[in-house]
């Protein structure tokens, strides 16, 4: 991050140079403003006390990378145990903790903070704002996260172990049958939820109030649009998650009976409340990905995004529909036919706006002048592989078929296609797209291409065979399996190890890029559009202190 801290004089000079070179329409900075252009503090205080959206964005991204590696190493434990049938490496209780904490870390620690980090970095740059609207709350919403995950990970080392009831913490597994460390899980979730809610409020207030003059709603970059809608989803459902874990807490420790039939409660109700949160949550993890891909594909197709307005409306429809499909996770709980049909049709309806998006991306590429830089490679892989995940989701939506697929590896294959090759690939695409802007250096392209191709091949070796073992009946979350699944599981595990190791390349690429590399101009990619390419590379510590003029 040293490169960000260069002094203002040279920043201002470079800015002027670029303006004369490229005729960029940024309003001139008044000379009297120069005294406000102070750089960041030195040392640890810079990071502890910072209210700068770029610093906080960087911290979120680094944090999520660390969590991605921790959650990934848990996946390695899972795949090592499943390499062969029988129990060899870990005991089943620890295996359950690994599947549970892997899920929690990846959802709340890797994907969501990564998107918040990207939002922090890019939303103010994209709308021409000097910073986020609530910078101190921004600092706080980041700094409570490490504590949440310290509590969660710490519980793994305590007597009785960490949470072992699946990331969905169904009652009564999390109430009657869980150990006393469940309270730690509950508090960790509460803190993560607070962090997400504060982040979401910040994003909404920033986008609503701090757009540069002339940045009308239908001129917003799609990343900003998708994040705005995501933030509303977060505000609607994270409090419901907080309510759910609170009910688990009081059921377990204070004698209430929300989910306990003995006291008049109902364990099935847990699933309704949880998935009322849970289904919008999965769109929280994919809508910003749509935004990132919608930024990248036009840039490397050298065309405008096809169907901008339909993209916005499709995103909003997906967000709305996400609230009325939750029970498709619960087809096997004995719902009446009318309920199963309702949730089947609403779920299938989601494929309409999602299809609009996929066709728009393809139409953007159609007859475009494509070039295959690393961000574009990840974006194209996203479109193809996310669509595979979407199709398996459509299969799962068919109620009678779901009775066979429910709780098998088919489901695991489905949500890893949408979350790994969907959300994670889009985050990587976004990082490769904007990393030169953040650091001022081009990353090692050859190494990044190795990272892409190794990831692409290994992720399919990892997740594609899961469809088949799932259809053949291998259940999720079990440390052992029938002998007939042995060969496929060995292949899956090899794919898993290869994918895990490939991500170390990503760490190397990012580290090298921060340390140095070929200097890049303000407009890193020649056909990229958006205000973020009109500020210097690396992006100065303070940007858009006077709002830019928006071109028509």
């Amino acid at each position, binding site marked *: 991050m040293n490169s960000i801290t260069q002094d203002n004089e040279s920043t201002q000079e470079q800015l002027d140079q670029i303006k004369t070179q490229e005729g960029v329409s940024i309003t001139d900075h008044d000379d009297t403003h120069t005294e406000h252009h102070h750089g960041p503090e030195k040392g640890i205080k810079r990071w502890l006390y910072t209210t700068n959206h770029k610093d906080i964005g960087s911290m979120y991204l680094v944090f999520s990378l660390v969590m991605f590696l921790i959650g990934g190493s848990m996946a390695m434990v899972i795949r090592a145990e499943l390499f062969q049938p029988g129990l060899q490496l870990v005991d089943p209780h620890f295996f359950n903790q690994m599947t549970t904490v892997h899920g929690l870390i990846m959802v709340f620690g890797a994907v969501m903070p990564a998107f918040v980090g990207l939002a922090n970095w890019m939303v103010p740059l994209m709308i021409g704002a000097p910073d986020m609207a609530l910078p101190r709350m921004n600092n706080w919403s980041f700094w409570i996260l490490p504590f949440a995950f310290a509590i969660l990970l710490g519980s793994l080392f305590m007597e009785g172990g960490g949470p072992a009831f699946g990331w969905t913490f169904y009652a009564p597994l999390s109430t009657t049958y869980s150990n006393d460390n469940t309270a730690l899980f509950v508090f960790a979730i509460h803190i993560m939820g607070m962090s997400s809610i504060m982040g979401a409020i910040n994003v909404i*207030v920033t986008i609503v109030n701090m757009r540069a003059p002339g940045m009308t709603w239908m001129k917003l970059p799609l990343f900003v649009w998708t994040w705005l809608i995501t933030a509303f989803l977060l505000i609607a459902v994270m409090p419901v998650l907080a309510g759910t874990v609170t009910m688990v807490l009081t059921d377990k420790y204070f004698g209430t009976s929300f989910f306990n039939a003995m006291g008049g409660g109902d364990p099935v109700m847990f699933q309704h409340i949880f998935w009322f949160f849970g289904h919008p949550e999965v769109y929280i993890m994919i809508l910003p990905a749509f935004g990132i891909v919608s930024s990248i594909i036009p840039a490397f197709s050298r065309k405008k995004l096809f169907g901008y307005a339909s993209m916005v409306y499709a995103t909003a429809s997906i967000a709305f529909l996400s609230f009325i499909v939750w029970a498709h996770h619960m087809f096997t709980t004995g719902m009446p036919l009318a309920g199963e049909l309702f949730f089947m049709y609403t779920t299938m309806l989601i494929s309409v706006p999602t299809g609009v998006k996929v066709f728009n991306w393809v139409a953007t590429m159609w007859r475009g002048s494509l070039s295959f830089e690393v961000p574009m490679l990840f974006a194209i892989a996203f479109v193809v592989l996310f669509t595979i995940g979407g199709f398996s989701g459509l299969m799962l939506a068919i109620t009678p078929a779901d009775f066979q697929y429910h709780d098998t590896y088919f489901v695991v294959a489905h949500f890893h296609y949408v979350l790994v090759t969907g959300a994670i690939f889009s985050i990587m695409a976004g990082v490769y797209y904007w990393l030169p802007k953040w650091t001022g250096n081009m990353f090692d392209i050859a190494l990044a291409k190795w990272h892409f191709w190794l990831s692409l091949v290994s992720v399919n070796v990892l997740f594609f065979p899961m469809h088949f073992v799932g259809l053949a009946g291998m259940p999720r979350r079990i440390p052992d399996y029938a002998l007939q699944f042995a060969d496929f599981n060995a292949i899956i595990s090899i794919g898993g190890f290869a994918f895990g190791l490939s991500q170390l390349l990503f760490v190397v690429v990012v580290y090298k890029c921060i340390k140095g590399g070929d200097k890049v101009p303000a407009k890193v990619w020649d056909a990229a559009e958006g205000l973020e390419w009109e500020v210097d590379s690396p992006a100065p510590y303070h940007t858009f202190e006077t709002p830019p003029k928006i071109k028509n």
Partner: protein
Amino acid sequence: MTSQGKLIRNLAFACIGMFAFAFALVPLYDVFCDITGLNGKPSLEQAKVSETIDTSRIVDVGFITHIQNKAPFKVSADQAVISVQPGAMSKVVFKAKNISSENRMMQAVPSISPGLAAKYMHKIECFCFNQQALAAGEEADLALMFYIDTALPIEIEELTLSYTVFDITQSGQMGSSQGASK
């Protein structure tokens, strides 16, 4: 208040509102299930006696019991399945035994499958309406009197009444200082 302040305040209220909504889902869920009869939860209130009998069809009613958490009881119906005409009153006796050496309180929680049949099952008398006190080793005959509503949809030809039996000794009888934590 600035427009930004108002927006922040509204968003904060929305969060608090959604937190409350999560808890509001609990009674809403019960009301919804009560109206639609979707979750197989039968009514725990005594029904009125039936006035008509539908002699044109016969419904099989099965009885199963499930002991939760190794509660020290044995409970079973004297007949596993009976055939009844809708509207006709039936009586089934359940034998319940406390197999522990302590006095215990028992609570049976009924559930009906298919769920939609729940609101057509009318109980005149049921041991599930009350807690049952069983002394150590005591055996008791517990009665269930019910009839099936003549309005039962024609496609439902059999239904199952399942009782889940809980040991509620700690919370029900002794009032307990040790109750909550385990």
